[in-house]
């Protein structure tokens, strides 16, 4: 644990490769039990930041402390205590699942019950399978299992679902949620908005080596652009004439057949009540109502003027 109670503490972190500055003064802290996300496009500096914290790379400037150790100096202590799930790693084709776990267990000073670990990751049935015979999701579960063989207090998950099918991605999300419930601290990098929204307690949005926004996903959304989108489908066209009685400066537009209405509102809960009442008074049948909150994607576009997955 770091002096201030955080598991990760980063101040003014910089990393240059020659003249190229990949990380330009990043600061954040991760609290015990927290799932902290680094969200940003490829090349934003997420992986560089994480690898510095894992002790794999030397920083150019700034202060970092991980579990009370300096990752630039006390690499071995940090490696021994953290769990890491890297993107795009492999194991030898002919290694069996349980052998991989046993092998990696031998590298750490602290171990966990591998049998239970396999069970928790639903790998018990596959324990005698060769690595090359596993599906993408199973391989990723093995990667997670390997990150857990030393029962780490702090986990680094670098793009844990990149390249996986949506179905498998959900599976992995479930596992990460379990880890979060077990109060493990997690630093997660991703360029998937849903992943950050769904899994992270707090998120730092990184672009071009800098944090441009930090906070819980909800806070960020509200702070940056506070309007939600309400879509209403009516059974008959809404007659032309009086506009709906909006109170908070909402804007709206009708579709050409005047059967659907889109409303932008900063207080969508209040607005929905008003709209439903109004339609009811007009004697028109309400077919459907849909509330769309602004996503981090929208936030990102708002902040940087570009899409995440460009």
């Amino acid at each position, binding site marked *: 644990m770091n002096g201030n109670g955080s598991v990760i503490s980063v101040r003014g972190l910089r990393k240059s490769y020659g003249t190229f500055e990949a990380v330009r003064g990043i600061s954040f802290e991760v609290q015990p039990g927290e799932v902290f996300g680094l969200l940003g496009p490829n090349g934003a500096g997420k992986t560089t930041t994480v690898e510095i914290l894992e002790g794999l790379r030397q920083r150019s400037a700034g202060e970092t402390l991980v579990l009370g150790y300096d990752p630039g100096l006390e690499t*071995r202590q940090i490696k021994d205590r953290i769990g890491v799930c890297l993107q795009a790693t492999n194991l030898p084709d002919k290694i069996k699942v349980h052998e991989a776990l046993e*092998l990696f267990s031998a590298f750490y000073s602290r171990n966990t019950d591998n049998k239970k670990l396999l069970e928790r990751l639903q790998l018990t049935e596959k324990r005698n399978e060769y690595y090359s015979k596993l599906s993408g999701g199973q391989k990723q579960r093995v990667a997670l299992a390997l990150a857990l063989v030393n029962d780490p207090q702090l986990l680094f998950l670098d793009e844990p679902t990149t390249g996986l099918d949506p179905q498998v991605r959900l599976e992995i999300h479930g596992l990460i949620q379990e880890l979060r419930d077990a109060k493990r601290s997690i630093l997660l990098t991703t360029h998937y908005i849903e992943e950050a929204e769904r899994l992270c307690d707090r998120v730092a949005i990184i672009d071009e080596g800098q944090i441009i926004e930090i906070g819980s996903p909800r806070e960020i959304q509200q702070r940056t652009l506070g309007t939600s989108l309400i879509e209403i489908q009516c059974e008959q066209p809404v007659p032309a004439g009086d506009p709906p009685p909006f109170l908070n400066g909402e804007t709206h537009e009708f579709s050409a057949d005047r059967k659907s209405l889109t409303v932008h509102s900063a207080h969508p809960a209040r607005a929905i009540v008003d709209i439903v009442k109004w339609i009811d008074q007009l004697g028109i049948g309400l077919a459907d109502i849909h509330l769309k909150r602004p996503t981090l994607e929208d936030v990102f576009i708002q902040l940087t003027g570009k899409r995440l997955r460009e």
Partner: protein
Amino acid sequence: MNAYTAQAAINVKLTFRDRTVIFFNYLFPLVFFFIFAQLYHAEQGGAIIQVLTMVLSIGILGSGFFGAGIRAVQEREANILRRFKVAPISAAPMLFASLLTGLLNFLPSAVMMLLLSHYIYGMAFPDRWLSLLIFVAIGAVAFRSIGLMIASVVNSMQESQIVIQLIYFPMLFLSGTTIPISIMPNWVQIIAHFIPATYLMTGMQSILGHKESLAQNAEPAGALLLTTVLATFLGVKLFRWEKEEKISGASKLWLLAVLSPFLLLGTYQAYTKTDVTKARVLNRDILRDRNVLIRNVRIFIGDGRVIESGAVLVKGGKIAHVYDGAAPDPKELKAEAIEASGKTLLPGLIDVHVHLAAPGGFSDSASDYEPGKTMPRALAAYLYSGITAVKSVGDPLDQILKVRTLVNSGERLGAELFTTGPMFTAAGGHGTEYFKNLPEQARKAAEDQTVRTPQTPDEARQQVDVLKQRGVDGIKTILEAGQAGMLFNRMDVNILRAIAEESRAQQLPLVIHTGDSRDVADALSAGTRGIEHGSARDKIPDELFAQMKAQGVAYDPTLTVLENLTALINGSSDPLERPLVLQSAPAALLDSTKKFLQSDKGAKMRDQMKLYHLNMDAAKDNLRRAWQSGVMLVTGSDAGNPLTLHGPTIQREVELWVEAGIPPAVALQAATYNAAKLLGQENRIGLIQEGHDANLLLVDGNPLKEIKQIESIQSVMLKGERISRSELFEQE
């Protein structure tokens, strides 16, 4: 389990699951094993050692460069190492695991090859099997460490392929692994000794073939170990876990550091050439260890017996069996068959009287008098002519001993050499006249090497003892006073007696050069094993021959030198025109000799020589009566004297004997069994008999009927090696 044992254990498991590993470690060498075995006729003898070591070396190189090197790069490129990077381990357990795995994979394969060599090709189990296995293990680990080191300094698979091919191919082709280095040009042999695999090959062959221990191969083993340490250390230091991490091109130079033990060893070898020598000897041993069956041949056993149609089986350089009549199927005997009907097989001929340092001709070129060059060339000329052993009786001691080692070890091909070193004579006696015109210092040096002139019996004894310590094969003493016009001081008989006694005590056969019958009488009373020359001036009384027979003394009339000196006096160059002489003597020497004979110098020499009374008839008469008296006769030529060129000396000698009325069988026995007996070697050479060295001369026709046939050489074998006669003079 700690990181080392866990990584090693899984690595071993994984490689045994990997079919390509099984293929390259076991099946691949097996294929090569059988291909090489067939190519080198491993079933017919000692080539199996070569085949086995070649295949082991191929296996070790493959395991090192591909099993360890390429594989390590593959694991990095496949992002496997990356996973290990985040674990709290260094590269050391990874490298250790690879070294150990290579060893555990390779040793069973090596043992398998060893067993196949034994059970299929009849190779003897290595006496030093532990030394062999340890040496092989050191080699396997060393080359793996080099492979891993290469993986650590290359950036991509493509780069690794280039670097590995650059190192692998020279190791494969210039180290003896696929082509014996002893057949390569000299400059390639020098390059070869900068290549680690060369030492791997000679080390394994020495332990297998020469029954050497690991300690005797400490040099190559030490260099391999040092390379292992350097390569492993640098391999760990420069290890990279991810393909994205690049290393500078200059770091490839660390490879030179890893190979530095061999750069040093190579430089050392370029000066000493001890390993080149070793490689030549090892290769010679392999060439000598062939199974050959010479069949349907007339066999002159050597001691007078003749098998009219029989066969001789040669195995391991020795005569394994002599068949009277038909021999079994050569396939059954696992021998190569030589059809020899109409031919006669004799033991290799022996010349018991030569002076190798003298050229036998005349030359203006100083190099024709350079013993280091001319003596090995002369021995090659003898071997070319089917003379498989010669005895030098008066040559510079240091050089003749050097040449004896050079040729008798098998490093150079030539007739087996026996030597007395210098000759004993009186101060101012015969033998000293060659040096009397030299400047003081050169004269002293030459005399020191070539003659011994003891002043007292004690000094004589002491000189015999010193020669014994130097390792001479016998003692030669000159006892003659010369004749009118060419007088010499004659050795004091008390000194002669002392030499004879001490020679007997030291078990050195003594031969005494005599000029006339008085010398023969004194020599016999002093006690000698052989009379050289006898007399070409007077008649040796029958009583002396009777005494010779009684004492078992050999008589060597050296008629050849008489004939040739007579030719010189008559200005004839006939001795140079004999076909075998033309084939075996250096062409330049023949030319310069002919020119000399026609020159003023030649004429002057002829005039001086006319003072000699060389009486061939007297010499022949003495020989005939020696034979009639039952004296043991031996053949010597005194080659090195003017016009007696080194080469087919004994052919001419026996022809002269037959002219003198000696039956061909008697002459040929003198040239084989009897000569061997005088050398004290009759249990090893001079006979076609089971257990004897396979020194054989195959001639066309029947020399027992027509002695001239002894010049129709079909084939010569020395210690089991069929001599490629045409290549004898191309040896460097």
